[in-house]
């Protein structure tokens, strides 16, 4: 298959699914090895940077997804009733930062960093699909452990969790 066709198929597949599709799945469907495919996708990502395009490809945890260009959001807002923004309070953002860096983490560990109860924030973050339960801690009460989701990565423009900005040294 020539490279133009491969690019066309990738665009088509990402468009149809709407959800992230992994490099592995794409490689199986296209019968192209993952390394070659990754290079082609990176080229394709560059193609989309062209000012004539209104959509782009984002990478999240080794999967790829199509989304609209954020800089054109004002037009989307004009056409559609503005989609509810993520709307996180400062307290929720603080809670989210703590979870992002210290995951997996329990509620009481979050509370102790913030100095206040975080129940409401955690509920809100779960509701917004920013965090999820990732397990239970061994020990009394087996408290729930929280971690971040792929939605979190997407909304904060991170390919994976290691791309988080560095935490300023507080020692």
């Amino acid at each position: 298959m020539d490279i133009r066709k491969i690019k066309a198929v990738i665009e088509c597949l990402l468009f149809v699914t709407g959800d992230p599709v992994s490099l592995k799945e794409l490689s199986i469907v296209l019968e192209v090895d993952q390394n070659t495919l990754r290079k082609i996708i990176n080229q394709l990502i560059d193609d989309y940077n062209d000012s004539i395009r209104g959509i782009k490809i984002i990478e999240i945890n080794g999967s790829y997804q199509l989304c609209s260009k954020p800089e054109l959001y004002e037009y989307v807002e004009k056409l559609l009733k503005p989609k509810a923004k993520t709307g996180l309070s400062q307290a929720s953002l603080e809670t989210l930062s703590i979870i992002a860096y210290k995951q997996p983490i329990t509620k009481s560990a979050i509370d102790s960093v913030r100095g206040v109860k975080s129940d409401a924030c955690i509920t809100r973050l779960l509701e917004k699909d920013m965090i999820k339960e990732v397990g239970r801690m061994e020990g009394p009460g087996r408290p729930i452990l929280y971690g971040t989701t792929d939605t979190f990565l997407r909304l904060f423009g991170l390919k994976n969790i290691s791309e988080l900005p560095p935490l300023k040294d507080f020692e």
Partner: protein
Amino acid sequence: MSINIKLEVFEGPFELLFHLIEKAKVDIYDIPIADITDQYINYLKMMQSLDIDLASEFLVMAATLLEIKSKMLLPKAPKNDEIEDSDPREELVKKLLEYKAFKELSFVLKEKLSINEKALCKDSNLADEIIDSFTLPDKLSIEILLEKFQMLMKKRESFNNRGFGKIYRDNITVEDKITQILKILSSARVLYFDDLILDCINKLEAILTFLAVLELIKRRKIYVEQSSNFDKIIVRRR
């Protein structure tokens, strides 16, 4: 004459402390603990005089500050080579700095969010439509449905527990349940108690169902029987 008080609301004791430290323009590593403690307690008193409920964490911090203050007043123990004389403020400062680091980070994240949340994705309706157009296999395991349904219930339950209120069957009452049970029994002679409970969407509804059965027994509308331990409980009309 009216007095205008600009009241700042603090999310928690750390925020209040930061505010006081910044206002006093002091070094965070060398907090004048007596002054700051007094200011902190004054603030709490003011809030209380205005009848503003304070989270218990504010009071816990007040106690911590008083404890540190009293330790600072104690005469320094003579130098001992074995035990390092630690600053009673050390732990508090460490926590404050950690909190501050996360607070700063949250502003960076907020900035990232404000850009990237404007990149919108497409829903997966198109893929669902295509998948649903595929032909069905000859046979499917019922377990798949059970699993799906239980997952939905679990999700709902956990949201309910977090105080989202009920999402389904609003405002159901014991009286509704009584009517429902009597209606079933008007056409069926008997019914299984298990089925009534299984039909419930959450714990609250199960409890209401149970109360309805008890009430109906009391009103002598129904009676229940069980032939032996662990057998199904049968509900009959009187």
